[in-house]
Structures are given as structure tokens and as C-alpha cells.
């Protein structure tokens, strides 16, 4: 059985080895880009059925951002929406025969978590200025400084490992079951994988929203603050 921790090199461009997850990611990126360009080429004020569906997707992403971050969704829509749609497609790409989801490898998840890490930094500095952002590390008191710094790194690591562990274990279990039993036995597990993939994509997006929001807004910390009852 091949280790889930190693990646296979598919081809080489000059001295750079290109691994399978990278190629799958490129394919997903190309598909998303093509779809977006063709879908948004003819937008009208009176949407047809197709455009209404697209608007529904964007609206629901917007409302999730509004609910979770308690902020206007416009600055975050591109990042959060892309993260969600890409993670979802990457998790579901195992349904295509012969394709292994890129999120089942540690490197892809680490890359996305690092994007979130720097995005939180960027939005935090943009919202409060450099001094204000650095001041969040010494809250509530100066003693918390090492813990706060450690937290910034450990939550990036835990996001990586969470997505990797969940998606990879799904792929791994299907592989094990397929090697034990016949053709149709893994199908219920694959159905479970669809659910897990969707939930993990959602959780990854919600967690990145929570982290970015906690860098932006000092009143909001990872255990989501409840809206005051109206």
C-alpha cells in the first residue's frame, strides 16, 4: 500500500517536478475559470434560470460571511468563496475515476491554510493598522503574548491537518475496502465521502472566516459571539 504522505511526480517541467495534486489543482482551476468566464459573459438585469442559480450561490456565500463575520461581505467574498468552491470541488474530485483529491495530500492543505494565515494578517493590518494589529497579540494581558503567537501557528497547522486527515482517511478507507471486497462494496463509503467532503469544505471556510474575523474585530473571538437578541 502506498503511503498517503508521499506524492507521486507526474511530469517534470525543466528541473521542477510536477506532482499529481498540482495537476488536479490546475484542472480544477481551469474548469472553474472557464465556467466563471462563460457564466458571467452575458449577465442581465432580469436573470434567467441559470443566472438566478448563480446568484443564489453568491447570495448564500454572502449571507454565511455576514452571519459568521458580522461584517459586510464585499471585501471577503472573493477569498472565502474561492476557498469554499475550490475545497468542495477538490474534495469531490475523488468521484472522477482515477483522480485522487489534491486535498488528500498535506501540501495542498498547508498551502491553503497558509493563504488563510496571511489573509488574516492582511485584513487585520488593513482594519486596525500595524500597531493595532500587533496589539491584539498582547490581549487580554501581556502574559498571553507567547500563547497568542503560538496560537497563530497552531491553528494554521490544525486547519491543515484537519482537512488532510478527513479527506485522506476517506480515500484511504475506500482503498482498503476495495482491496478487501469487490466492485460495489465501497459505494456507500463513497457516498459518505461526498457528505464528509462537503462538511469539511464548509468547516474549513467557516474556520478561516472566524480567524480572519478575529484578526479584524476585537469583539469577536473564535467561539462565535452570539448576536444580541433582538
Amino acid at each position, binding site marked *: 500500500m502506498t503511503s498517503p504522505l508521499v506524492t507521486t511526480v507526474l511530469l517534470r517541467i525543466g528541473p521542477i517536478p510536477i506532482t499529481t495534486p498540482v495537476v488536479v489543482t490546475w484542472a480544477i482551476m481551469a474548469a472553474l475559470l472557464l465556467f466563471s468566464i462563460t457564466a458571467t459573459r452575458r449577465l442581465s438585469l432580469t436573470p434567467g434560470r441559470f443566472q438566478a442559480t448563480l446568484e443564489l450561490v453568491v447570495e448564500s456565500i454572502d449571507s454565511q460571511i455576514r452571519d459568521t463575520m458580522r461584517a459586510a461581505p464585499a471585501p471577503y467574498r472573493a477569498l472565502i468563496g474561492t476557498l469554499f468552491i475550490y475545497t468542495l470541488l477538490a474534495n469531490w474530485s475523488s468521484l472522477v475515476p482515477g483522480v485522487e483529491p489534491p486535498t488528500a495530500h498535506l501540501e495542498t492543505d498547508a498551502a491553503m491554510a497558509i493563504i488563510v494565515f496571511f489573509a488574516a494578517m492582511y485584513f487585520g493590518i488593513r482594519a486596525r493598522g500595524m500597531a493595532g494589529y500587533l496589539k491584539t497579540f498582547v490581549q487580554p494581558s501581556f502574559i498571553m503574548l507567547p500563547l497568542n503567537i503560538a496560537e497563530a501557528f497552531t491553528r494554521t497547522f490544525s486547519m491543515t491537518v484537519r482537512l488532510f486527515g478527513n479527506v485522506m482517511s476517506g480515500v484511504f478507507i475506500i482503498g482498503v475496502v476495495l482491496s478487501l471486497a469487490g466492485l460495489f462494496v465501497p459505494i456507500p463509503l463513497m457516498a459518505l465521502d461526498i457528505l464528509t467532503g462537503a462538511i469539511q469544505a464548509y468547516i474549513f471556510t*467557516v474556520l478561516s472566516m472566524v480567524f480572519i474575523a478575529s484578526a479584524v474585530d476585537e469583539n469577536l473571538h473564535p467561539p462565535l459571539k452570539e448576536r444580541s437578541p433582538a
Partner: protein
Amino acid sequence: MNWIGIVSIIAAAVAVSFGAVGPALAEGRAVAAAMDAIARQPESANTLSRTLFVGLAMIETMAIYCLVVALLVLFANPFVH
């Protein structure tokens, strides 16, 4: 089969089995509490379920850490060359 291999396999099994117990109990309690809250206040089900998902993800991370340790022991064991 050398000793390191045998010990690694046992260690991986122990890591996953015992590492799954705590998060399983914790997730059960969390879901039960959330169900209770939703039954009391069905109108806040949206906020509750979103918070529940985030919390479950946090709890689940512990089990995933154990899984990753088991995988490291099995596939990337530093003592096996």
C-alpha cells in the same frame, strides 16, 4: 519482521483506538447539548448548528492528530530506513 515494525504497528493501533475514545465522547456530549438547545429554541437553529460544526471540527482535530501520528509511525517512521 524486526521489532521496530511490530512495535510501530501496535503503537499505531493504540494511538488511533485510544485517541478516538475521548473525541467520540466529547462529540456526543456536544451534539446532545446542541440538540437540547435546538429543541428549546428552534428559531436559533442556524446559529447553533454553525457553532456546533465549528466546535465539532475543533474536537475532531484531536482524533485526527492521533490518526496523523499513526500514519507517521507506519509510513514515515524515523527509525526505519
